[in-house]
């Protein structure tokens, strides 16, 4: 039948498209990488040519040297921030997921609590951090709560949208199959929400680090946030820069981890 060949053609086209996509990916990584290297070079020469003092703006080479020399210190401060970020990530997102499920199942709950969620989200995290440190003390809990809070809202909004994103025909199909609400939830709504959930989790993977660092600014002896404050007040600019790189490295690490899980879970 001639139709078989039309299927084949369609598949060949798909393979071609995938090749083109791969080339685009290489470009997508290559171009920004080259740009970044150029900027670093510009910075290096700029600092040397204009003889900017090291405590104001260190050269990239100085930062690199400090990064290697002070690596044990950086690592010692890295672990607490990692724990706070990760615990906060799980706490904030789990809370958001459960509340989103409640919102979708019960419109009254949504009407009652959604404005409150919006209100809490409008409070700047810098303003609420001291309050939380007062409530929970200077230990781990306050930082986890701050990191969790910063993750909460984007995940809530995305998860609600995801759970509602089911196509009308899927729901008609479920009705024809006389499916129960529970079956619709587990077999249709929850899987359809996953792409939405993961786009929120990718945002949360980077913002939870911000939350943890802000928490450490308010009160902590250890952690990348504490190290930032410490090196700023002691004019140790190259250590400050190294810490900043360490922090963004932590964000990237968490982002990549979430992206890998997403690739494994979402194959469609």
């Amino acid at each position, binding site marked *: *039948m*001639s*139709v078989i060949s*039309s*299927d084949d053609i*369609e*598949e060949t086209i*798909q393979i071609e498209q995938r090749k083109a996509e791969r080339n685009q990916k290489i470009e997508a990584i290559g171009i920004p990488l080259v740009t970044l290297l150029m900027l670093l070079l510009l910075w290096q020469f700029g600092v040397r040519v204009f003889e900017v003092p090291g405590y104001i703006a260190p050269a990239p080479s100085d930062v690199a040297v400090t990064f290697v020399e002070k690596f044990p210190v950086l690592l010692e401060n890295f672990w607490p921030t990692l724990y706070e970020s990760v615990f906060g990530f799980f706490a904030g997102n789990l809370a958001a997921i459960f509340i989103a499920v409640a919102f979708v199942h019960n419109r009254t709950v949504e009407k009652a609590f959604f404005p409150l969620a919006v209100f809490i989200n409008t409070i700047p995290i810098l303003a609420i951090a001291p309050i939380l440190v007062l409530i929970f003390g200077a230990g781990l809990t306050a930082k986890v709560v701050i990191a969790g809070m910063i993750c909460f809202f984007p995940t809530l909004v995305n998860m609600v949208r995801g759970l509602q994103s089911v*196509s009308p*025909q*899927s729901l*008609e*199909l*479920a*009705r*024809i*199959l*006389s*499916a*129960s609400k529970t*079956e619709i939830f587990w*077999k*249709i709504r929850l*899987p359809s929400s*996953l792409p939405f959930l993961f786009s929120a989790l990718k945002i949360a993977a980077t913002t939870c680090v911000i939350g943890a660092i802000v928490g450490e600014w308010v009160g902590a002896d250890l952690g990348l946030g504490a190290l930032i404050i410490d090196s700023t007040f002691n004019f140790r600019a190259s250590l400050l820069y190294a810490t900043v790189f360490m922090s963004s490295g932590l964000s990237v690490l968490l982002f990549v981890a979430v992206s890998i899980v997403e690739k494994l879970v*979402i*194959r*469609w």
Partner: protein
Amino acid sequence: MNTSNSTQTPATGSPPVAASLSNAFVKFGAFTAIEDFTLDVDSGSFYTILGPSGCGKSTLLRLVSDLVPAASGEVVIFGKSTEEARLAREFAFVFQDAALLPWRTALQNVELPLEMGKKRGVKIPISDKSPVELLELVGLKGRENALPHELSGGMRQRVAIARALVCKPKLLLMDEPFGALDEMTRDHLNLQLLNIWHETGVTILFVTHSIPEAVFLGQKVLMLQSHPGRLREVVDIDLPYPREIKLRDTPEFTKYAAYLRELLETC
């Protein structure tokens, strides 16, 4: 008509009428979508439904499948109410856009009806053919583990047909299932559908907006009229089965198509 349709198991004792609508109305608020619809669909028959857009073709299928309620009048499916028929899986529905779950493989999509609605206390009938065999029946042998996005539009629609057959429905409701496909794929699937009809003895109600498709497939063409949607005429298509694509070039076929086109223009 074709004798092959009597192969359906006599044990079920199904009455000769698959679906019976008497003076059925469907209203959405003040809007009347279907007005005073009376029709008997013979068991084992293949009816195609044609009509201008907005004539209630899809609504008619949704009325039969208990997706929209009748405002008045009665709809009986194999002697049962639409709700009872739905719970007993007397009918299956094939949507225009396959409506496959994108995270499930072709095989898992076909198996979906077996996993749902189990707790309703009504035994779910299961086809004599396994889900794998059903995929083979629709020509998708070897693609069991493909995800929907890896399949072409025609293949996805074939998965949807296999899924519809998995609970051994006696009535198959198809809402423009091949409307979005290219002509070659559509021809191929039309032939395949006639084969499935021939093999399973299922009753088919098939909505289409293509006059050639309606004539090619159906024993009868129901011509609907719009504003409000109602039955205009039932046209018997007296062409022998099995039908082949070249039937379209015969004068008889052209005569039916021309007649329907004229009818459609005055609807």
